[in-house]
């Protein structure tokens, strides 16, 4: 039984004792989680004990009412210890935001959110699908009336190409066509409890990096109530919440990961300097380059976060559906996912063989391997193709 989390002010969330403990556990576990490609159970349990899984839930539903800036900060701090844990935290908070902002008075979801906080339930998402070529905005599987029931139950079956921490989550948020005759882009989000579903893992997860996210493919099948379908169309949820929140929180994962790699490089240079007092080690020049790169990286991520926060009011909301915003939020993802690889590579150059070796205070192999996942999560080429089309009508700088 998870202990009842204490109520904490949003601004104190990351300073809370519980979260600091989660950070310590994440740091301790990071190497083993990566080596064994196992879910960071201890870190996620520590996040549960801190009440962190309910942070994004609005206060009226018993959560901490944390804003995206608070969640970004928490994601960043986690990622400095373990990027896989940070990514799991970020993905969960993205699902929470989709539900909290788009439940539109749905009774089922109004009852679900306090339960999520109470039980610290972890939500995974099944948006990818075999056959859609990685396009978030297309589904093949549909929600439809259940065949073996006379009531108003619904059912679906989906072949998801990856579900991050699918075997370790409590609930699943799935994109589906809104009916058997709906077009591929006419989607809804459906929340189901994994304990009540049939799931079959159909591939494994032995990857270059982000090994702790444990994201194999699954076939998932569920029967649910009509109330478990979020009442707002997925196109709106994607434009206003899922896409911007994903790109912003992922960018903070990558920024945290890069920051730790650069800090290791900095410590390495400092150690070298100590050995030869009075001379600046040659690697210090590379470190200076890295520092400039990080300043740019931080500014890019901060600008993306600031714009999103400034638009989170009634008038700003319509901006999320404009072409200009779509281009900018895609640019944030592309830029941050490339910046993280460059930073980790730079750190490796500075640390040399000490960075190349696994283990030890200057090792950045895990960072570099984790960083390479960034360009693949919603492939940068897909985003470039989208932006290329959007830029045919959008006039940059206007």
């Amino acid at each position, binding site marked *: 039984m998870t202990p009842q989390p204490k109520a904490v002010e949003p601004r104190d969330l990351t300073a809370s004792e519980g979260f600091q403990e989660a950070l310590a556990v994440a740091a301790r576990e990071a190497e083993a989680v990566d080596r064994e490609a196992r879910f960071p159970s201890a870190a996620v349990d520590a996040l549960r004990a801190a009440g962190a899984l309910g942070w994004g839930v609005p206060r009226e539903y018993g959560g901490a009412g944390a804003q995206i800036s608070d969640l970004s900060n928490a994601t960043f701090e986690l990622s400095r210890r373990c990027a896989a844990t940070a990514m799991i935290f970020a993905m969960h908070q993205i699902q929470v935001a989709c539900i909290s902002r788009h439940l539109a008075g749905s009774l089922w979801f109004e009852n679900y959110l306090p339960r999520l906080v109470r039980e610290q339930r972890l939500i995974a998402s099944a948006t990818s699908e075999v056959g859609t070529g990685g396009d978030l*905005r297309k589904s093949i599987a549909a929600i439809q009336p259940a065949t073996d029931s006379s009531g108003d139950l619904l059912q679906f079956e989906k072949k998801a190409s990856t579900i991050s921490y699918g075997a370790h989550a409590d609930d699943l948020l799935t994109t589906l066509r809104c009916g058997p005759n*709906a077009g591929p*882009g006419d989607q809804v989000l459906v929340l189901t409890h994994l304990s009540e579903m049939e799931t079959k893992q159909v591939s494994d997860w032995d990857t270059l990096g982000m090994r702790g996210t444990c994201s194999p493919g699954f076939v998932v099948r569920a029967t649910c109530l009509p109330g478990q379908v979020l009442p707002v169309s997925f196109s709106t949820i994607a*434009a206003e919440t899922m896409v911007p929140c994903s790109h912003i929180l992922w960018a903070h994962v990558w920024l945290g990961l890069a920051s730790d790699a650069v800090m290791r490089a900095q410590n390495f240079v400092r150690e070298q300097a100590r050995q030869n007092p009075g001379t600046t080690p040659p690697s210090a020049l590379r470190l200076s380059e890295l520092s400039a790169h990080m300043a740019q990286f931080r500014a890019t991520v901060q600008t993306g976060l600031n714009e999103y926060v400034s638009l989170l009011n009634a008038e700003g909301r319509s901006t999320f559906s404009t072409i*200009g915003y779509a281009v900018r939020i895609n640019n944030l993802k592309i830029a941050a996912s490339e910046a993280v690889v460059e930073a980790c590579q730079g750190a490796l150059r500075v640390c040399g063989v000490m960075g190349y070796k696994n283990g030890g205070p200057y090792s950045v192999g895990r960072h570099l391997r984790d960083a390479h996942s960034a360009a693949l999560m919603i492939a940068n080429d897909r985003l470039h193709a*989208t932006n290329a*089309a959007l830029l045919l009508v*959008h006039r940059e700088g206007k």
Partner: protein
Amino acid sequence: MKDVIRKIVKDHSGVALPLAEIKDSTDLYRAGMTSYASVVLMIALENEFGLEFPDGMLNRDVFENIDSIANAIESVLQVEK
């Protein structure tokens, strides 16, 4: 004007409906228009009506159906006069 728009929608939106079934209020996105197709449609409309949609108008609501497209074009033409 709406019939001109309807013809352009039929040719460029990727919506697989016969011309007569594309009503003024048919939701084009629901009928299968992708965001890429909506861009193609915008360009075709700009070309046909000799105008440029301002950035604030390049959003989902404006290109949702023939009525909303006609309103948008009229307001742009009004400003240009």
